């Protein structure tokens, strides 16, 4: 790749360290998971915490406000040492916005080394909105008025794909089979057991046509990365680090004509024509534009498989195949290990469950290990370029492109 971080302008930052606390239901506080991940990332980077000039936390939200203000909470737990501190909240994209904040601080010369941490201790059962009577909050309204849980939205998308593109429930099950097989190989995954299509079909229906094993769980977990300037990495003798080359955090464009969480209706396209590009596709395209690459350059991709059907949608939104061809790409084995573009080599959310502020950082950890060639039994041979993609509530989404 070009832009070696040498003389002249570069927008690259180095990933010096990546670390995670295993996902699960451990019953402990999120600070513990975050600190464990942070220490693992610092050890991986070969850095003392006191060398870190800035810490960015992806907020852990309880009751509609951050349970603690994440950046400061992790800084205090690691030991106050005077670092610049920032906390960000962007629903499921919180971790990617935290990474982007760190990157911008480095590129602006405000810090040489930045620690990014996200961690969550998830509640039991469905995610639910904060309490109280809050009819000005669309997230509260969709539960109050419709009882519309997150899985019901996933069910709507899945049924729409079946009607428009001819996807089948068997296709959806095969996404779970693929991701579960990768999760078996990942020591940080919560579910490390192979799953068969028959087991998916035999699991309880949650939101027609999606069954329990089509839908990701909610988990405890923590993830962290240590980012630095290319100059700092070179001074430390890291000659060929994984580099983050693009972070996309764009909003939708009006009128948004896909029924996204937590909305009760789409925008109307009666006065302004809807964009030719969907929100998710625009997230990926913005990252490709910034990195100066295209989908044909990718070695690996980590996508937000909140449901099995949504993974197929991401294939199309990332440009791995044409619209409506996601299931075909899966059936051909292109997205499985050994395929043209392995997707979710980590095991995906199917194997992890979602730990909201940690998840987008965990995606970057997996891509980092893949590009370093240290992903052990999950390794995609010769991986050089990776993308992560996610989408969350309230018009948040992200994509990160890393290269080596």
């Amino acid at each position, binding site marked *: 790749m070009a832009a070696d971080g040498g003389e002249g302008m570069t927008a690259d930052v180095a990933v010096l360290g990546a670390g995670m606390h295993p996902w699960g239901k451990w019953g402990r506080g999120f600070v513990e998971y975050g600190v464990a991940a942070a220490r693992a990332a610092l050890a991986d980077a070969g850095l003392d915490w006191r060398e870190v000039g800035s810490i960015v936390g992806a907020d852990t939200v309880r009751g509609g406000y951050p349970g603690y203000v994440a950046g400061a909470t992790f800084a205090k737990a690691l030991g106050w040492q005077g670092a610049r501190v920032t906390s960000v909240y962007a629903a499921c994209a919180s971790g990617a916005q935290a990474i982007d904040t760190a990157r911008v601080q480095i590129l602006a010369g405000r810090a040489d080394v930045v620690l990014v941490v996200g961690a969550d201790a998830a509640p039991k059962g469905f995610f639910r909105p904060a309490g109280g009577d809050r009819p000005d909050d669309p997230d509260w309204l969709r539960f109050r008025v419709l009882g519309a849980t997150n899985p019901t939205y996933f069910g709507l998308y899945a049924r729409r794909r079946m009607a428009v593109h001819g996807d089948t429930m068997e296709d959806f099950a095969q996404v779970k089979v693929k991701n579960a097989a990768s999760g078996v190989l990942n020591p940080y995954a919560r579910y490390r057991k192979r799953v068969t299509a028959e087991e998916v079909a035999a699991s309880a229906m949650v939101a027609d046509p999606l069954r329990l094993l089509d839908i990701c769980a909610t988990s405890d977990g923590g993830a962290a990365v240590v980012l630095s300037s290319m100059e700092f990495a070179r001074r430390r003798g890291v000659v060929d680090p994984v580099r983050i080359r693009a972070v996309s955090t764009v909003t939708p464009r009006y009128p948004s004509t896909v029924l996204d969480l937590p909305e009760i209706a789409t*925008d109307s396209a009666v006065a*302004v024509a809807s964009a030719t590009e969907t929100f998710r596709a625009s997230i990926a395209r913005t990252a490709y534009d910034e990195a100066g690459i295209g989908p044909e350059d990718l070695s690996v991709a980590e996508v937000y498989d909140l449901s099995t059907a949504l993974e197929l949608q991401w294939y199309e939104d990332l440009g791995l195949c044409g619209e409506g061809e996601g299931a075909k790409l899966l059936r051909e084995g292109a997205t499985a290990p050994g395929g043209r573009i392995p997707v979710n080599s980590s095991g995906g959310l199917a194997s992890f469950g979602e730990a909201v502020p940690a998840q987008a950082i965990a995606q970057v950890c997996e891509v980092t290990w893949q590009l370093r060639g240290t992903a052990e039994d999950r390794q995609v041979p010769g991986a050089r370029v990776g993308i992560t993609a996610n989408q969350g509530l309230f018009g948040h989404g992200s994509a990160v492109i890393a290269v080596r």
Partner: protein
Amino acid sequence: MSRTRTPVVARWFAGDGENFSLLGTRCRACASVFFPREDVRCRNPGCQGADLEEVPLSRRGRVWSYTDGRYRPPSPYVTDPELPWEPYTLIAVELEAERMVVLGQAVPGVTPAELAVGMEVEVVPGVLHEDTETVWTTWQWRPTGVRA
């Protein structure tokens, strides 16, 4: 003692029988339509409009997609924990004139097995839940019998 009938959200729908409809708003400057209603500003980024009028939405539309809730949703959805959970169906409906999709519960008894993308449905008044003083009303989608 008669209980009061109260909309689960004020000013989102009105009328009875054939006159029942969802209520949106329309920007007088750019004609953008909003549901849930915007009353103080237009959300079109190319419009500075702040004058919005109430408009009834089309009573009929086509099924964009559908699903159901097989498990009891958490609060603030109101259910009786003493009673077994009865799954209900959700339908996302494409309104042709407004060029938008609006979600709603199906009338009780309609299951996903009876639905198809493209099928025609109409909006009807329904009851979300009842307590000792109040019958909480809502909108529901009902198939008209016209297939795609």
